[in-house]
């Protein structure tokens, strides 16, 4: 055990929820999306969401045991979700700019608010866990 089990169990449950969400949205994007729920069809991004899901789910067992190995996958999953979340926020801005330049007929922030963005926002509490385990990385 590398850090308190209680801390690890809380993180494990959260990692499982995040993994489950990514595992749900990823295949939907790969399969062509659901317009009604604002899930676009995006094959490659869908596949990357599955990679994020794999990282979060892979983290669960290690976190439950209070091991850094679990924290490692949680951190990587968080980095990937941050990368994609921030990219789609930037793309939202780019779409807005295209609209202002007269190159796009309409700009809808709601349509541009892709699952990757809200999944990234949902992942942000992971930072609190990472900061908490930081102190256990050094044996004083």
């Amino acid at each position, binding site marked *: 055990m*590398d850090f308190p089990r209680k801390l690890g169990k809380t993180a494990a449950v959260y990692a499982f929820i995040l993994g489950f969400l990514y595992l749900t949205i990823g295949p939907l994007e790969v399969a062509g999306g659901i317009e009604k729920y604002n899930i*676009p069809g*995006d*094959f*490659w*991004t869908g*596949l*990357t969401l599955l*990679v*994020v899901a*794999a*990282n979060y789910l*892979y983290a669960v067992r290690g976190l439950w045991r209070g091991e*850094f*190995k679990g*924290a*490692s*996958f949680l*951190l*990587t999953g968080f*980095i*990937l979700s941050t*990368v*994609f979340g921030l*990219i789609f926020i*930037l*793309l939202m801005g*780019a779409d807005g*700019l*295209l609209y202002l*330049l007269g*190159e796009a007929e309409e700009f809808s922030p709601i349509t541009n608010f892709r699952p990757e963005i809200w999944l990234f926002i949902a992942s942000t509490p992971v930072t609190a866990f990472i900061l908490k385990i930081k102190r*256990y*990385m*050094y*044996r*004083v």
Partner: protein
Amino acid sequence: MGEEFLEDLDVVFAEKRYETIKSILSQVWRRKEVKWTFTDLLDHAFLHRGLGIPIFLSLLWAVFLFTFNFSEPFMVMIEMFFSWVGGFASGLENEVLASFIADGICGGLGSVFVFVPPIFFLFLALAVLEDSGYLARAAFVMDRVMYRLGLHGRSFVPMIMGFGCNIPGIMATRTIENENDRLITILVNPLMSCSARLPVYVLISSVIFGGGYLAAASIYVMYILGIALAIVMALTFRKTLFKGKPSHFLLEFPPYRIPTKRNVLTLTWERAKWFLIRAGTIIFSVMIIVWFLSSFPWEATGGGVNIEASYIAAFGHLIEPLVKPFGWNWMAAVALFFGFLAKEVVVGTFGALLGGGEEMVRDSLIEAGMFTQLTGFAFMVFTLIYVPCVATVGVIARETNSAKWTIFSIVYLIVLAFIVAGATIGIGRLLGIP
């Protein structure tokens, strides 16, 4: 026997070096004992046997998603600028000068300059990955696959550099000691999509898929196809021309760090500058030639209006039979021909041939109906594979110091381009893709 001994010697040297560092440090420096560092945390996942490669491919997709979609408004702005200058120049009294500025400079060179934003953002994203320390890990992760497929792990860095430009990529193979490993890496390096091919992909994908995520996905496929073909060809060369196993790979990882603004911008500028210099010299010169050939004889073409009467059309019709089976016309043949001088010229040639006046090259290509989804995609595939630019061929000649390998690299790439583009068309037709 001798090579194996040298490889073992490398490992012994590395082990001894670290033992010495450790013993010196233990005498002069005391610190809190570390269980895990952030580098350990990240490496455990990034270098994972099962997840390492999917993570690498996901990050590569993130790079392309960012590069091509985020650069779109900036490309529009540059397009608007050249459109404005072209419109202004059209009003000049001297017809030849007006045609030169509007069609030659704005249509040709302008259509290449439009691609400065995606190239800049591609280099920016790669610089972030490099400065963070991740690219070295990517080399390690890919080594497992590459070793099995006959490539040396150290080949990965020249291959990644090939994404920027094949010239430094090929020059970077000097770090590979084994001559066979080095030759294989040189021969397959042109299959890595250099940034000069990017304008062609962006243009054709936007013509056939109308931009957006599908266009970005098709460009991503080009990069993945380049890597896949490089691996297949390396394996083929290993089994036929350079028999034996690749030598072992020894790599020291830098620690992870948050990329600094200064480092990233310097790296980006150093690489993007090269594109601007090329655009101002080689591409500009070629565009003048293309404009001249497409506008003269002046009387016969009516000042470049009736392009079918131009010198370039006569030449294009001569080489058209070579590309006709793929569903491309003489303009595509000419664009590919001049692309040998510099790949960006493919786009510039289309610009000079079609994009006269205020009309931009993408709209002109759509209007002309030159490409269907299938033939356009096959054109992208062909551009990816067929001969590298003349400067790269020069570097291959210098680095291999052999006319035989230089000619071989040109011939095998042309043959491979015809085979893969032909297979793309054949499979596409079987699947009923328009």
